[in-house]
């Protein structure tokens, strides 16, 4: 099949349609607007619904309604908009409804800027809103991976009845790469006995998040937690890049991972033993990747490379659990790590740090 050149933001949209999503609700915000523009055109072509809401509060609650009624629904936004959505996301997680949310991260805090960052990592991986819940968080690093992963996002959302967040950044959203499109009609939408879609002769369904009796709320929290444990056990995804024989292992996701692949290529050309772990699921964090690489005994240290002041590094440290030193390199506020700067940092660690 011939490859198609597409922007990352458009690939999210096309991928969603090819995954059977027919309902999109959203509010404009840079740098994710191409996704909305694309779906505004594309949804009517497939008989779907594109609706521009009056706010992100409304769009996530429209997703709540459509998902609860049994539809495959999604929304997308960027930092400030995702912050507004947190109330609704908490409700959706509590009510155990499937949906996909795309966050094309932009510089923050506050209004920040529209440049690419990864500083919404904590918000994405710790639940984000109020209460004890988790989102499945997928972090593609290429346009091809966007279109492949968003289909998986809808399937995971339904498998676990849990919202899935796809985390990208302005660069990934704007970037164009050729990719192969997956088959359009090859999606399966499982039956939804839980959907409040009108009784139509059947039993009553309630989509609810109120558990006024603490004993019942504890039970519900326990049920959710058991689900999260299952996801942690089954759904960790990552890519090892040139990790064989690596003494220094970089850890990076999304755009930072692409830059780090360049760093690894450059270092390997110079004979430096450097590799990369690229987490694809940020939650569950791929702890298994670290367990297996540490069993090889060649790794001396880890370097977490992020477009933030250091958020994922906390998960890297938890995964490494004191077995090796973990260092950090980051750029912030929309500045990208420069390949040669990371190489410098790598050389410094390899030459100066005692293993």
């Amino acid at each position: 099949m011939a490859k198609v050149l597409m922007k990352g933001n458009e690939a999210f949209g096309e991928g969603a349609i090819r995954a059977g999503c027919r309902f999109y609700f959203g509010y404009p915000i840079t740098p994710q607007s191409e996704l909305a523009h694309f779906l505004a055109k594309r949804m009517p072509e497939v008989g779907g619904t594109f609706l521009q809401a009056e706010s992100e509060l409304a769009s996530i609650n429209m997703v709540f309604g459509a998902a609860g009624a049994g539809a495959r629904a999604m929304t997308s936004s960027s930092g400030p908009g995702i912050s507004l959505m947190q109330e609704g996301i908490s409700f959706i997680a509590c009510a155990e409804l499937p949906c996909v949310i795309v966050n094309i991260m932009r510089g923050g805090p506050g209004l920040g800027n529209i440049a690419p960052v990864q500083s919404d990592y904590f918000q994405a991986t710790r639940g984000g809103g109020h209460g004890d819940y988790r989102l499945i968080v997928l972090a593609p690093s290429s346009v091809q991976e966007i279109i492949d992963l968003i289909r998986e996002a809808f399937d995971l959302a339904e498998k676990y009845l849990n919202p899935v967040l796809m985390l990208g950044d302005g660069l990934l959203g704007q970037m164009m790469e050729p990719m192969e499109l997956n088959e359009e009609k090859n999606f399966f939408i499982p039956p939804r006995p839980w959907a409040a879609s009108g009784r139509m002769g059947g039993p009553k369904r309630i989509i609810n998040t109120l558990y006024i009796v603490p004993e019942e709320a504890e039970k519900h929290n326990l049920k959710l937690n058991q689900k999260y444990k299952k996801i942690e056990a089954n759904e960790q995804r990552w890519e090892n890049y040139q990790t064989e024989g690596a003494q220094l292992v970089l850890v990076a996701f999304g755009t930072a991972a692409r830059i780090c692949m360049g760093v690894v290529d450059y270092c390997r050309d110079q004979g430096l033993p450097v590799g990369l772990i690229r987490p694809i699921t940020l939650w569950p964090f791929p702890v298994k990747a670290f367990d297996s690489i540490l069993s090889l005994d060649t790794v001396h240290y880890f370097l977490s490379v992020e477009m933030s002041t250091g958020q994922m590094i906390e998960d890297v440290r938890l995964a490494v659990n004191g077995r090796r030193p973990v260092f950090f390199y980051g750029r912030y506020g929309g500045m990208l790590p420069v390949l040669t700067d990371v190489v410098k940092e790598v050389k410094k660690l390899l030459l100066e740090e005692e293993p």
Partner: protein
Amino acid sequence: MFESVLLAGFGGQGILSAGQLLAYAGTLAGKHVTWVPSYGAEMRGGTANCGVTISSRPISSPIVSEPEALMAMNRPSLEKFEQSVVSNGLIVVNSSLVNCKIARKDVQVMYISANKLAEELGNNKVAVNIVLGALIFLTQIVSLELAIESLGKVFPPRHQKLIALNQRALKAGAQFFDHLAKEKAG
């Protein structure tokens, strides 16, 4: 072998589309391609640039921070990116809007007065594709035929006239240095 190109100019010159044209041509060639824009919040009038990488190997970092070839459509772009070009790299300068010479001795510099040539073609806006045609000729990063074929991807079919005009622009840019080379040889 040229793999990475940085196209730079001011907003409204068609820099991003020219980069996309190159990316489409690379895609048609079956290569690995990345196109990454970088522009200000303003839609027009600001600086605009994009980086294109075309390679037969998978592309690790899509960010073109040290281009092998730079296409500078105006003076501020040249000043901003001149030093980032790799040693032995190429800079194609739109001499219609850049009235200075480049001091660097370790790069190949080619000057083309694209706006003048564009006016000869009857439309100032195609200057960018004249320079792109020149860049394609000088780097062989893709074939000119595939670039011409890709015009249909960048312009909607209803813009047949624009496609024909830009085809002439690409060719004019390529021929400019072809003639120059032949003149020198002759």
